[in-house]
């Protein structure tokens, strides 16, 4: 490839022609004033003092021009011109004292930022003195005085003295040096020497292209690791962070190696980058240069860190106004992130294009590795793109674009640059409607954890995501100007999804909860939306709630799904607030929290969302301390929602109890029977009783006639709680459960829990725990009456419906009515495999439980377990039900019917109560 790099002899700068005073419009009196301002240095040669004054005066003038609004590019070039003139003045003064011929024997070459003519107010001076192979004594003295003079002038100097050959060899060994000298610019001295160096540099560069590119990329990667791998840092380094000035330099260095050209416009002419990319780089560089110059001027030193105070100052200085809900500083940083994202993208594409190919074989065989998919996409060895003939059609088809990105992520390839640019252009202009097919495709995508975060990130970078969820556009690069968050809203959101999908591999309760979640799409969508309400005057959860409603309508979600998303987005801070600021050991608080959520599925989603949200705030934010508190609240609330039924069936923790019960068997047959039956008893029952008690009851049951009903009752120690056990062989459903709850309510007892377990051979075990509402210590005769009437119910003798006592009611005020918890019935079919859980939330009234359980019986359902909780007015009942065959209900229609009918009977019952 012919080199287009043709250095011309440089022309004199304006500073050299006219001097700084004339050039910068500085009056000579001003120069004298400046001279007085600077301290005198008796030890310094007069030419150094003069050079120093020229540098300071010139910089002062340039600063005035910068403050008056001159472009960043103009400022750095003016500083470069000033530096050139200062260095040449210094050189001439030194050579006047030595031998003027030394100028012809050496060449002064500026490299790095000075070579590029991008000199910031406190940039280092990178100067290379090219010398002939045979070094003369006079050259050494010249170099010594020059470097000392530059240092004494107050400039930070990086100085080297090498022959052209040495300079090339040294550059070849070190990528950092090589990248710096690719930006070389002739300043003074022997032009032949400079040309010799440049030719040598081109030669070694061309011969070692792959190694040099790999070295440059590795060095930049290492720098990025130190200064930030993401564009969206809240305190970026304006030179070295991702997407910052260094990435524009990287394009130039790689351009020099691959195309023998480092000028962006020249690279554009060579078609190494597109004109649109070149324009973006120019615009972004201009923005960054202006910021950088101001940072240097204001700090009065080399300051490249864009800290929070500087952000606020610069936003004000550059006249950012902000808007409602967006501070001026946030608006400025939105610009910063926009510009640096553009640089990052062009830089990534160019780096990928410049990366070492897989050798000659790779180049030759590339066509063999290229294949077409669905007559639409072209898969190459490194990228996936849209075929030229399909471009017009596909770039306007969101569905196909999602497919393209999924394909690229799945195959581990980049999106082809042309395709990227074409899609971005369309996304900037066109409006899109979300079709049913697209909505479905997007929700399917959200439902799959694998690669989800990567796909969403690319969709966001290509501006496709905001066509599906319009609220994303507002969050792009939106700074959260507080001490808490470390990323912008969009970066935080994508990071949260990344963390959440990684729960798939977690081995703790977090991973288990995530893996068991049936509809992960709802959780991921909620994470995507949870902070989109930021940047508005109103509270962000409230704005988020409206965004959630609009988005769910747009994505055609069902009512239940939309309700879940709305709840999660609106209440995404609820769990962390409770866990970190409230006593999570407080039962009624946990119950209220659980009642607010209403289902274990939603609870699991809120738990995972909260964890991911906190973790995505920044590294180390989700401490074990916070995770433990959240997990503890999750366990407690889950127990409320599942009625404290922590295990299903056999529990190995009770192995010793089982063994002691089995020992009571007289022979093998009896022991075998006990072994089978005891493991089916409710776990909580085994915890409450001694092994002897359990064995006695079971053996009594074994030996009883087939139509016998056994009934035990006893007060439990410590309070007013009593327990009732009924054991009976049932061939047909008898409704014992609802009838006994009715009996207990009619006698002034509040049922707390009930376990119903089939022990085999149609033997059913009912275990009730209830509280006496009328006596502090339940009299024995009262207990006996309960036992006797329960036995009659079980035997089918007592068929009378319960009669509840009339209670005196005062008028219920409107305030009391409004403060009542809402009546809700939720079906949970994913928490346990053996039963469907019905959660009922209502306010209390005598006979309420009987009404619910009677309805459950009428619906043909068997209750396996029930937990009844009352907290003040709030009633929170949990029922595990199966069909009459003992199977979980899986028919979605039937589930809806069950929910509606129970809700209806509850409303009728409670509304009657209100009218009383």
């Amino acid at each position: 490839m012919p080199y287009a790099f043709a250095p011309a002899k440089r022309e004199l700068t304006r500073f050299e022609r006219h001097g700084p005073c004339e050039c910068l419009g500085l009056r000579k009196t001003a120069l004298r004033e400046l001279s007085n301002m600077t301290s005198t240095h008796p030890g310094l040669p007069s030419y150094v003092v003069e050079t120093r004054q020229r540098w300071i005066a010139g910089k002062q003038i340039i600063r005035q021009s910068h403050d008056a609004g001159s472009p960043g590019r103009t400022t750095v070039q003016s500083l470069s011109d000033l530096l050139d003139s200062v260095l040449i003045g210094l050189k001439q003064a030194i050579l006047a004292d030595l031998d003027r011929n030394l100028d012809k024997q050496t060449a002064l070459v500026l490299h790095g930022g000075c070579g590029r003519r991008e000199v910031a107010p406190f940039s280092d001076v990178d100067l290379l003195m090219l010398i002939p192979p045979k070094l003369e004594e006079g050259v050494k003295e010249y170099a010594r005085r020059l470097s000392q003079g530059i240092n004494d002038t107050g400039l930070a100097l990086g100085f080297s003295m090498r022959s052209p050959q040495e300079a090339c060899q040294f550059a070849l060994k070190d990528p950092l040096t090589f990248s710096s000298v690719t930006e070389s610019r002739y300043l003074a001295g022997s032009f032949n020497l400079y040309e010799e160096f440049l030719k040598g540099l081109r030669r070694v560069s061309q011969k070692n292209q792959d190694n040099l590119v790999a070295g440059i990329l590795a060095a930049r990667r290492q720098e990025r690791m130190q200064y930030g791998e993401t564009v969206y840092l809240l305190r970026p380094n304006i030179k070295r962070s991702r997407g910052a000035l260094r990435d524009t330099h990287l394009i130039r260095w790689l351009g020099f190696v691959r195309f023998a050209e480092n000028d962006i416009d020249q690279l554009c002419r060579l078609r190494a980058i597109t004109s649109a990319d070149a324009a973006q780089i120019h615009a972004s560089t201009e923005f960054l240069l202006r910021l950088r110059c101001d940072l240097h001027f204001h700090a009065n030193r080399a300051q490249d860190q864009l800290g929070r105070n500087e952000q606020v100052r610069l936003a004000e200085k550059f006249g950012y106004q902000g808007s409602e809900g967006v501070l001026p500083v946030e608006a400025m940083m939105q610009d910063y992130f926009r510009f640096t994202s553009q640089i990052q993208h062009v830089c990534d594409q160019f780096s990928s294009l410049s990366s070492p190919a897989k050798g000659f074989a790779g180049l030759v065989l590339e066509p063999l590795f290229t294949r077409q998919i669905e007559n639409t996409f072209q898969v190459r060895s490194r990228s996936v793109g849209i075929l030229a003939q399909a471009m017009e059609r596909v770039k306007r088809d969101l569905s196909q674009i999602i497919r393209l990105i999924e394909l690229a992520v799945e195959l581990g390839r980049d999106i082809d640059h042309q395709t990227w640019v074409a899609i971005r252009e369309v996304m900037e202009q066109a409006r899109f409607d979300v079709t049913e097919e697209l909505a479905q495709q997007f929700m399917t995508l959200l439902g799959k954890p694998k690669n989800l975060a990567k796909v969403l990130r690319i969709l966001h970078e290509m501006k496709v995501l905001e066509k599906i969820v319009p609220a994303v556009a507002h969050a792009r690069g939106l700074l959260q100007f507080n001490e808490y968050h470390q990323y912008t809203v969009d970066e935080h959101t994508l990071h949260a999804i990344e963390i959440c999908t990684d729960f798939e591999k977690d081995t703790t309760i977090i991973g288990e909860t995530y893996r068991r979640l049936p509809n992960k799409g709802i959780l991921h969508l909620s994470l995507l939306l949870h902070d989109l309400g930021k940047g508005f005057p109103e509270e962000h959860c409230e704005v988020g709630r409206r965004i959630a409603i609009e988005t769910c309508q747009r994505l055609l979600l069902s009512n239940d799904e939309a309700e879940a998303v709305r709840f999660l987005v609106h209440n995404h801070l609820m769990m962390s607030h409770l866990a970190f600021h409230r006593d999570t050991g407080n039962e009624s608080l946990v119950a209220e929290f659980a009642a607010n959520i209403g289902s274990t599925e939603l609870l699991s989603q809120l738990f995972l969302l909260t964890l991911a949200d906190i973790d995505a705030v920044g590294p180390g934010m989700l401490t074990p301390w916070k995770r433990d508190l959240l997990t503890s609240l999750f366990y407690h609330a889950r127990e409320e929602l599942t009625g404290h039924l922590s295990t299903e069936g056999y529990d190995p923790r009770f192995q010793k109890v089982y063994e002691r019960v089995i020992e009571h068997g007289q022979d093998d047959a009896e022991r075998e029977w006990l072994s089978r039956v005891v493991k089916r008893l409710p776990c909580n029952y085994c915890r409450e009783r001694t092994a002897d008690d359990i064995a006695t009851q079971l053996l009594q049951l074994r030996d009883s006639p087939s139509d016998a009903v056994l009934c035990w009752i006893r007060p439990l120690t410590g309070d007013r709680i009593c327990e009732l056990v009924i054991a009976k062989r049932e061939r047909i459903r008898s409704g014992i459960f609802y009838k006994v709850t009715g009996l207990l309510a009619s006698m002034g007892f509040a049922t707390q829990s009930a376990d119903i377990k089939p022990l085999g051979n149609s033997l059913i075990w009912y275990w009730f725990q209830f509280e006496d509402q009328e006596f502090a210590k339940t009299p024995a005769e009262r207990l006996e009456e309960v036992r006797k009437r329960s036995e009659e119910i079980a035997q089918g003798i007592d068929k009378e419906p319960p009669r509840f006592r009339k209670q005196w009611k005062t008028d219920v005020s409107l305030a009391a009515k409004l403060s009542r918890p809402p009546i809700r019935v939720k079906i949970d079919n994913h928490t346990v495999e053996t039963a469907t859980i019905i959660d009922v939330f209502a306010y209390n009234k005598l006979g309420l439980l009987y009404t619910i359980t009677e309805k459950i019986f009428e619906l043909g359902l068997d209750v396996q377990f029930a937990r009844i909780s009352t907290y003040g007015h709030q009633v929170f009942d949990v029922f595990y039900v199966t069909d009459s065959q003992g199977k979980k209900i899986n028919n979605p229609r039937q589930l809806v019917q069950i929910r509606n009918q129970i809700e209806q009977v509850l409303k009728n019952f409670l509304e009657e109560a209100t009218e009383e």
Partner: protein
Amino acid sequence: MKKVEAIIRHFKLEDIKTSLIECGVEGMTVTEVKGFGRQKGHTEMYRGNEYAIDFIPKVKVEVVIRDELLRPVIDKIIERAQTGQIGDGKIFVTDLVDAVRIRTGETGVDAV
């Protein structure tokens, strides 16, 4: 000068912060900590069920005060942090040799 370290229930922090400021405390350091005391931290009872917890999450509040504030500060912490249940926490008091405000170089009580 005294340094007071209080290990408290995490949800009592806001209350304690407010009342210490009212008392005249001008600064405090708060750390999320985990540990156990006499309750051994091994189990927690919740509605009759036991849960294994190795260390219980607490908050550590550290304040440095003039000697005369010691009594009111301790009284306030007890008043706000006490529930009467196991796990209310502990207060530790130490004599402080010196303090330095880094920005100005002031020392002793002036630096607090």
